């Protein structure tokens, strides 16, 4: 009883030790579970290091320090250096227009700016290949990647813009700054978190993307690793490339964490921020509207028209229902199982990070983030070699694929679940226990029930990832597996674009509700 009261007093920021004690039985149990998940997450990481060690310095360095790797590094660097700033500019402009100006139909435009996420990146490039067969290389890669990924920046930027307290801008203006100066000196710094987070997400996607860049004939580390894998299954060359790719991811993570800084961005003092005044666009309205219109045409119009074109060209014949149906079913089954597994695996870590924050929880959480940042190809390659060498019964089974999905998408589940658990008052959990429920029962019946909506959001986010996942599925799936993504891929590889179209359309349709959910979530975080 006294322990409970102590925890109550400490809420909302309990000290690690004490609060753990108050939850001792659950805490220990969840702590071990979280540890298991974290150790599992570190398998791919340790694996790459181990292969490097096994390969020996001479061979490893010969495989790493060669011109081809230099080429890939240069390609990757250019890709990031061009795509991320373009995405920032585009997303920022759209976010400002839809949130801070009196652009007609702002709500519709803002939904249309998120919707391209429902179209998998490799479907975007398939559409562009059809419209402009000559598009390729760095230019093509940057262009299609921008169209596919800018919503990752638009979402947090528009949410942040909506949340800003206009008082600061008023203060700056009252001191004589012109509107542009106000924007760059007052607004922009407050968008820093959103900018950093969104850019990191896009950067990691660029490193991990496979299908898009293969179609655009632009070699990155990920495409080169898959090439290597297909030439020698899991030779040291592929593993060394994935080591370099892993390093690239860590560099991005470190850059982001430095850029993010430690400044506080919360509003100080009591009361609520007043509503923002929208800037009148006046005569510029129609001209300015070209931007969202053009973006929508490129990011949604092109894929939808192309899909329509191929569907009509293929006629009813391309709907081989036995095949499409079985691919839908397999995708749904893998997606559902993977998403539930990932959400369950995320419970211990998220619970600890809310209820017993501290070094241990932070460490457990960051190991999941670290691995979630790795491209699927690195994780898949590690899983192939580990299972074939030491865990043969798991080799080529659904278990391995689901584990890979879990490692790849754990961060998505943790982030959603953590918010949900934080919103469930610890007092209720304690009340349940004082009424005779066991700690585990109290956690399950009270906290998890309250966190259920955010768990559902997490499951949907993970499901969205799995529905369109390509590389890991290609490399790990059990014999006979044919998901929407792999079926689409095998038809496009035989340049049978008409037969591929039904799979692309189905993927888009499956992704739409989850994209809608993302959009709703972003409105919610902004308090509307």
């Amino acid at each position: 009883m006294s322990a409970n009261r102590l925890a109550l007093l400490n809420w909302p920021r309990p000290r690690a030790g004490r609060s753990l004690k108050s939850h001792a039985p659950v805490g220990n149990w969840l702590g071990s579970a979280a540890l298991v998940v974290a150790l599992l997450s570190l398998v791919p990481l340790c694996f790459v290091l181990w292969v490097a060690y096994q390969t020996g310095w001479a061979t490893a360095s010969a495989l790493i320090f060669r011109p081809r790797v230099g080429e890939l590094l240069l390609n990757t660097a250019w890709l990031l250096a061009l795509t991320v700033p373009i995405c920032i500019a585009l997303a920022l402009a759209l976010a400002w227009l839809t949130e801070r100006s009196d652009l007609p139909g702002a709500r519709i435009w803002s939904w249309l700016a998120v919707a391209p996420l429902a179209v998998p990146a490799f479907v975007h490039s398939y559409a562009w290949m059809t419209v402009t067969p000559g598009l390729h290389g760095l230019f093509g890669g940057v262009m299609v990647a921008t169209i596919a990924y800018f919503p990752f920046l638009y979402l947090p930027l528009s949410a942040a813009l909506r949340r800003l307290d206009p008082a600061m801008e008023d203060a700056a203006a009252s001191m004589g700054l012109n509107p542009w100066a106000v924007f760059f000196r007052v607004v922009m710094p407050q968008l820093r978190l959103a900018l950093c987070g969104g850019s990191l997400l896009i950067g990691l996607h660029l490193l991990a993307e496979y299908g898009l860049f293969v179609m655009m004939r632009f070699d990155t580390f990920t495409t080169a690793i898959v090439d290597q894998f297909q030439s020698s299954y899991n030779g040291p060359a592929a593993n060394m490339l994935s080591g370099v790719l892993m390093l690239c991811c860590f560099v991005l993570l470190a850059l982001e964490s430095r850029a993010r800084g430690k400044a506080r961005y919360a509003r100080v003092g009591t009361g609520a921020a007043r509503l923002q005044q929208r800037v009148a666009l006046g005569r510029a309205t129609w001209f300015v509207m070209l931007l969202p219109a053009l973006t929508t045409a490129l990011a949604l119009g092109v894929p939808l028209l192309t899909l329509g074109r191929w569907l009509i060209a293929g006629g009813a014949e391309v709907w081989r229902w036995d095949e499409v149906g079985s691919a839908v079913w397999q995708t749904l089954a893998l997606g559902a199982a993977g998403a539930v597994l990932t959400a369950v695996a995320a419970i211990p870590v998220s619970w600890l990070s809310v209820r017993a924050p501290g070094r241990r929880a932070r460490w457990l959480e960051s190991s999941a983030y670290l691995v979630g940042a790795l491209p699927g190809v690195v994780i898949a390659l590690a899983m192939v070699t580990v299972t074939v060498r030491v865990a043969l019964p798991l080799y080529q089974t659904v278990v391995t694929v689901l584990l890979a999905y879990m490692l790849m998408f754990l961060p998505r589940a943790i982030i959603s679940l953590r918010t949900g658990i934080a919103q469930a008052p610890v007092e209720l959990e304690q009340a349940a226990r004082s009424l005779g429920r066991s700690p585990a029962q109290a956690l399950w019946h009270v906290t998890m029930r309250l966190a259920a909506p955010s768990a559902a959001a997490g499951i949907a986010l993970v499901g969205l990832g799995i529905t369109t996942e390509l590389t890991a599925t290609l490399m790990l799936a059990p014999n006979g597996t044919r998901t929407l993504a792999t079926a689409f891929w095998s038809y496009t590889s035989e340049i049978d674009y008409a037969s591929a179209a039904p799979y692309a359309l189905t993927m888009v349709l499956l992704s739409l509700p989850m994209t809608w959910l993302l959009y709703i979530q972003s409105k919610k975080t902004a308090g509307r």
Partner: protein
Amino acid sequence: MKFSFSSLSHALALGLTLITAPLASHAQTAAVTPSAEGIVVYNAQHVSLTKEWVAGFTAQTGIKVTLRNGSDTELGNQIVQEGAASPADVFLTENSPSMALVDGANLFAPLDAATLASVPANFRPANGRWIGIAARSTVFVYNKSKLLKSQLPKSILDLAQPQWKGRWAASPAGADFQAIVSAMLELKGEAATLAWLKAMKENAVAYKGNGVVLKAVNAGQIDGGVIYHYYRAGDQAKTGENSNNTETHYFRNQDPGAFMSISGGGVLASSKHKAEAQAFVAWIAGKAGQDILKTGDSYEYAVGVGAASHRSLVPIAELQIPAVEPGKLNSRKVSELMLQAGLL
């Protein structure tokens, strides 16, 4: 005396197999009782062709077939890594180097004599551990408005010359192309092959997939490309959308570029359903399987004894292909050389 004796015994053996082959294959397919789980086929052949084979085979024998699709070298290396634990019963490829790779690791079971007899000796390795199931000819496909007949390369080796810089394409990461390189390695030796690959790194534009090369040549993005014959044949038979501006050039003259790559099939020694697996390979190499090549839409060459290929194809006899022992093609060495040249 000795000569006549050996030829006599050959003739006898041939006669015997010719008599028993139809009986044996008939007995075999009839005798195998389908198991509940069926067989697992690691398939690197084109999925659509293998699906036709599987449909015909399952319809006739009731044996279930599960496919794992991948590329030649990927699946070949995968089987080697899996070793005796491999879930695969049968391995089918587009090209022979990967068959040689698996054979080199001693993972194939000997094929039934009757099955071997259904394909001529030049389309299978001498040791009888796998068999040719189809074949494809290397070609240089070119854009008619970009190249005149007189400007075409006489030999595939010519593409290493500086005047070809930026003007030809291939799909170097694919097993298809690597098979051509392995033939070059066998015919011209390591030094010449490496030099050619290094020149290729300079001269060629890399695409992913032969179909994509064809599309690019057709669109005039590049003058020509090294691919296999049936990509164009298949597209011509459909809409021609990806090939109407192109023409095929055969190198002939026993040039490495006239290499005909053999698609292989073999039964894994570790298979737990050997009888069913043998029956599957026998069916593909036999009349029913080879007839699918004649009539289907794969446009690969049939290799069975007396089997006819699709009539739209240039007959094998006119292609002047170089003699390469299919069992000797070395995919590991090719990967190494391509790595050295910076193509992988």
